[in-house]
């Protein structure tokens, strides 16, 4: 809902959008314009802190896997993966290679579900001029039906591997409580073959969208693995030379409190904001994409490094292609592991892990006592890492469109925020936008 006070010549204009739909969580953007310039810009996150790190103190480390999954209904697997890997690192647990492959397959399901949701239902309406996906669906019914089916396939993968699609219950420290048989996975193959074709069609579709001419000199940060497109393992690398083990993450990345946000802002020490998510993964790992995804990227004229954040919608579509192709490969090669989980001994220690949630790198750290109880934990979700970057994008982008009517400035600001598919629920929960114009630009 929005209210607009038309600008009077020589007076002030104010736009107040009570809620920005199509983001996960609640936040607000406040922009004050004067003399054709931005005077102030704040991405405000008034949502109270969710205090998960405090809830975890004194709990058995194994419980972190299921407790942290409740942080998000869209990407619970990401939380389960980062938590379980961090605890396994703390306890020196080596998981079975097939368990590792199965976790990767599990993650593919979440990527398919999340990317299909964002591309079609959250972001595409911005480009096509629709208030929401429901309005868009009237004209784009086949495309919306395709999105629904893609999303359903992602959910089905999570149900088969995790017991249910939202907050799955199969993952445990050391492996899984239950693993599927080969025949359990077989019905997914035909669905994924369709999904692969649908993903390529999705990339072709979104390539035709109108993209603002806007580029930024980002420092991209993602995981990087020598042999595979990053999901649940790898070193933390950046486009400006960072290359470190995840245990060194906090030596380089800092979380800062800012007055206008209850979500912390991540920065690179002495460097400032950075960019995590599909664009970063694509730019830093293009050569690891399977041939079909590279071919799709080439067809979409997507060449790394992509620096226009609006084109992230195409990159997400390429990652959809990747996730479907990778899932098919993993299912083809799958053999049930000899044991579903590796036995272990609890001991005192600290473990860190990062995995690639659909929205970007998700870091967890746990310090555990000799009884296996959590003494301290740290969770850095991708949206918290991107929040300062989103503000920086808006500082760079909005001056390009300050001559536009305030309604359009508001629309474009929301679109720019959704380039990052922000999950404010994870970072701390509808976004309000307030643009105040203190002059007579329009």
């Amino acid at each position, binding site marked *: 809902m929005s209210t607009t006070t038309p600008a009077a010549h020589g007076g002030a204009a104010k736009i107040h959008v009570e809620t920005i739909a199509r983001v*996960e969580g609640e936040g607000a953007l406040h922009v004050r314009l004067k003399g054709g310039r931005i005077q102030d810009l704040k991405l405000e996150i008034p949502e109270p802190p969710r205090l998960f790190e405090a809830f975890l103190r004194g709990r058995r480390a194994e419980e972190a896997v299921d407790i942290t999954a409740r942080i998000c209904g869209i990407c619970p697997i990401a939380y389960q993966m980062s938590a379980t890997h961090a605890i396994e690192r703390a306890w020196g647990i080596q998981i079975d290679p097939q368990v590792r492959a199965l976790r990767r397959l599990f993650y593919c399901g979440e990527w398919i579900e999340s990317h299909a949701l964002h591309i079609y239902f959250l972001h595409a309406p911005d480009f096509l001029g629709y208030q929401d996906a429901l309005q868009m*669906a009237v004209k784009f019914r086949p495309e919306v039906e395709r999105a*629904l089916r893609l999303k359903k396939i992602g959910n089905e993968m999570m149900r088969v591997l995790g017991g249910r699609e939202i907050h799955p219950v199969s993952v445990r420290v050391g492996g899984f409580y239950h693993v599927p048989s080969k025949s359990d996975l077989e019905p997914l193959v035909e669905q994924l073959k369709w999904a692969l074709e649908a993903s390529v069609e999705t990339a072709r579709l979104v390539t035709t969208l109108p993209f603002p001419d806007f580029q930024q000199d980002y420092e991209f940060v993602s995981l990087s693995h020598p042999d595979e497109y990053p999901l649940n393992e790898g070193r933390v690398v950046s486009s400006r030379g960072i290359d470190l083990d995840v245990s060194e993450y906090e030596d380089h990345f800092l979380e800062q409190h800012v007055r206008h946000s209850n979500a912390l802002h991540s920065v690179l020490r002495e460097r400032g904001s950075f960019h995590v998510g599909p664009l970063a993964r694509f730019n830093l790992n293009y050569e690891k994409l399977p041939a079909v995804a590279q071919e799709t990227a080439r067809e979409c004229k997507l060449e790394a490094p992509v620096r226009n954040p609006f084109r992230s919608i195409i990159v997400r579509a390429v990652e959809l292609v990747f996730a479907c192709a990778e899932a098919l490969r993993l299912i083809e090669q799958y053999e049930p592991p000899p044991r579903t989980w590796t036995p272990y001994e609890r001991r005192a220690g600290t473990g860190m892990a990062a995995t690639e949630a659909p929205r970007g790198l998700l870091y967890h750290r746990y310090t555990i006592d000799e009884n296996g109880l959590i003494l301290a934990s740290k969770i850095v979700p991708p949206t918290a890492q991107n929040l300062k970057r989103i503000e920086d994008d808006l500082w760079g982008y909005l001056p390009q469109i300050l001559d536009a009517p305030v309604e359009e400035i508001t629309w474009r600001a929301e679109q720019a925020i959704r380039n990052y598919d922000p999950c404010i629920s994870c970072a701390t929960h509808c976004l309000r936008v307030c643009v105040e114009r203190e002059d007579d630009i329009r």
Partner: protein
Amino acid sequence: MRHALPEGVRRTRGRHTLIVCCGNADRGDDGAGPACADALRLLGAAARCLPGDAFTLLDAWTGQPKVIVVDAIVTGSAAPGTIHRFEIKGGAGAEQFEARLGSSTHGFGIAEAFRLGQITKNVPEEAIVYGIEAASFEWGAGLSGEVHDAVQRLATTLAHEAAQAPRDSAPGKLAAGQ
């Protein structure tokens, strides 16, 4: 936050009326739906408990000719515990429900499910939405007394009507504003 262990769900498609209860048990009166599902199960009636987002609803009612949806609602014009009843045939009538629902805590919620279902031709021929007027959505607060009582009344009526109804017919009606 939902229960850690998945409930046993009797997936009955086709002839039975599907009862879907939506909401979050940990968010005060938003737990009306889950509480109604629990009450129905104790009374021997099958009900699915869903978070209430449009996508899972669309999936749940695919192929179902008749659906009953139970959720918390805030119209602001009725006392907490008031049971609102909306009849939706072939997706038509969701507008009045949407207008009275106000905002949903489930993102793409029930109203959007009906609108999307209409566009994609995936909507039950007949649906009844029972909205229980909520008092508070405070985390961890549990149900308010008025909503708890309304849940029990609604569950008893739905279970009774489900037991009485022929296999291929819907549970009967609860008077509007009861």
